[in-house]
């Protein structure tokens, strides 16, 4: 059993708060400041973190400023086209070198004493060159902005401050097989539809983090208004029995998870539109995965293996996460012209102290989508998810309650429970990749997230 009776702030190991045997996590992990500091060191200074997309900085010298944990970084494109992630802290006196969210410059010049840096972070020089104001103890080469490792995946910009950690692809493990179906499936890839929405939520980052790890179950109650309005299948007020979109295939590995859901079980507007005896090609023709239009299907076939095409035809990945703090929604949504379209959305949950996080939301479309459809997708995303979205405004309402519960000395001895266990099951036609949970969406994926969290925090 967990030792949940705390005397002041706990300084000892995370193991005290996570009961691996009984699959419970003490609410104290949402509150403890010592744990938060450990997370900044062990998770946010080491993991591969998503900072945006390379279409946000299409031109040489373009840059955006983003966060890795509480560290601000400059994400910039060099004249040679390469993308660099540099700590936005002047090595001279610690001033932020860059003071706007985005722009284009050949030289990032600190406004304090004028030290200047190239888009790749290297030091150009300090004013009054003849006096060598950077001194003679350190060379110019030693005075660049601190660099993170960078990996571009389907145009998504990932970075890590752990110079010796695993590669990005190693960190994805077998889950890459599934993520490729979202991010690496067309000739020209994804395009971001504008800068992200950003808001502060008065909750610990893990409230949204663990939910993004494929909590399907909350949809039935928290998002009941969608059922009441007939957007989702099932009966308006007894949805808990018909449970639309609860059956599918959940996959997990290394804390990364995805829910793969047969489209015809999700939306009333697609009900009955597929039949069991169709081939993969026929099903995809009738119902391309979210974000893929019929015109893009030949590209899909070019980039995907037959196994991946089968998954996309049977139950495409639609929601999930990338550990630690990326949320994914690649979902079907109606567009304003009445057609069935898609919303391609990524979130990050970035910690801002133990009791707050910043929630960012990017909208995407496949680059080869028409401008008209892109505009409709952008609108549909804003209407469904993020700040004002009719789906996610209920999520952001929930997370602060959990953090507030953890403020109470008794409240924080309560636990989050992940005891609805499906267990690994895999139909014969489903690829043997990562952990596979076929059936009702239970707690298996979220528990995988917590197991990975525990492993990192106790390593």
């Amino acid at each position, binding site marked *: 059993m967990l030792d949940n009776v705390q005397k002041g702030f706990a300084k000892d190991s995370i193991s005290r708060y996570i009961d691996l045997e009984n699959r419970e996590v003490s609410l104290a992990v949402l509150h403890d400041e010592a744990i938060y500091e450990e997370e900044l060191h062990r998770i946010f200074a080491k993991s591969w973190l998503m900072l945006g997309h390379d279409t946000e900085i299409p031109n040489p010298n373009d840059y955006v400023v983003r966060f890795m944990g509480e560290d601000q970084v400059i994400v910039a494109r060099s004249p040679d086209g390469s993308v660099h992630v540099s700590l936005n802290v002047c090595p001279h006196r610690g001033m932020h070198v860059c*003071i*706007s*969210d*985005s*722009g284009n410059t050949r030289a990032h010049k600190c406004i304090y004493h004028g030290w200047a840096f190239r888009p790749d972070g290297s030091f150009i020089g300090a004013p009054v060159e003849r006096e060598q104001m950077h001194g003679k103890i350190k060379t110019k080469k030693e005075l660049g902005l601190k660099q993170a490792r960078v990996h571009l995946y389907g145009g998504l910009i990932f970075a890590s401050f752990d110079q010796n950690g695993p590669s990005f692809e190693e960190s994805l493990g077998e889950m890459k097989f599934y993520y490729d179906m979202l991010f690496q499936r067309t000739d020209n890839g994804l395009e971001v*539809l*504008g*800068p*992200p*929405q*950003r*808001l*502060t*939520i*008065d909750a610990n980052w893990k409230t949204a983090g663990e939910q993004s790890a494929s909590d399907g179950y909350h949809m039935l*109650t*928290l*998002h*009941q*208004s969608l059922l*009441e*309005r007939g957007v989702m299948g099932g009966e308006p007020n007894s949805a808990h029995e018909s449970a639309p979109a609860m059956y599918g295939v959940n996959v997990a590995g290394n804390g990364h998870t995805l829910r793969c859901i047969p489209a015809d079980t999700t939306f009333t507007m697609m009900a009955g539109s597929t039949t069991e005896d169709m081939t993969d090609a026929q099903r995809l023709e009738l119902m391309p995965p979210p974000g893929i239009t019929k015109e893009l299907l030949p590209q899909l076939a070019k980039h995907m293996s037959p196994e991946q095409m089968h998954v996309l035809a049977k139950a495409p990945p639609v929601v999930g996460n990338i550990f630690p703090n990326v949320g994914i929604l690649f979902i079907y949504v109606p567009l*304003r012209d009445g057609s069935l379209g898609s919303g391609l959305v990524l979130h990050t949950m970035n910690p801002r102290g133990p009791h707050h996080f*910043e929630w960012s939301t990017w*909208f995407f479309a496949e680059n080869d989508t028409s401008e008209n459809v892109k505009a409709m997708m*952008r*609108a549909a*995303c*804003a*209407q469904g998810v*993020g*700040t*004002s979205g*009719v789906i*996610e*405004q*209920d999520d*952001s*309402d*929930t*997370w*602060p309650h959990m953090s507030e519960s953890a403020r109470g000395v008794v409240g924080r001895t309560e636990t989050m429970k992940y005891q609805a266990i499906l267990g690994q099951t895999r139909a014969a036609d489903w690829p043997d990749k990562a952990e596979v949970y076929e059936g009702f969406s239970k707690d298996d994926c979220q528990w995988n997230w917590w197991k990975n969290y525990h492993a990192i925090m106790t390593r």
Partner: protein
Amino acid sequence: MPTIEKTAKSERAEVIFGSPIYNQVAAFLIREAHLLDHRLLNDWTKTLAEDLIYFVPVRVTRRVQDFEHEFASTGHYDDDYASILVRVDRLVNTTSAWSEDPASRVRRFVSNIMVYETDTPDEYEVVSYLLLTRNRADARDYKHLSAERHDRLRWVGDRFLLTNRKVLLDQVVLGMPNLAIFL
């Protein structure tokens, strides 16, 4: 990236303060705040034109020299008449719109109204300030939001309808956990 038109409208004829049209515009905005603050959302939809465009752009911090790029193509709201009706239907006609149930207590203070004529008779461009306070449940503090509204109103014989609203927020990182409320 598309830009928002400049806020200075001096090239267009301004409707003078205190004139009958100015007063009607001010009355529209005051009554609208009343409807929204009192959650009379169905009544509010009757003040909207069917060709409504309702947009609250994402804002980014830019250097002064790049100020025209401050407002983005992505929106916190990116709506039209039909999608506003969907939002209202969810809030009014379902029993599970949790983000506003229990409802937050909201006050919209509208001021600094300037009215301009347009190329279309009976249509006016209106710039106003919005200060919004929001309190929910037993929160000690208020969530605040300040913004500049750029509206277009159409006179339809006996009243104004809102045909276009662009809300320029003063915050880049919003301090409230959602915009389950209309601005």
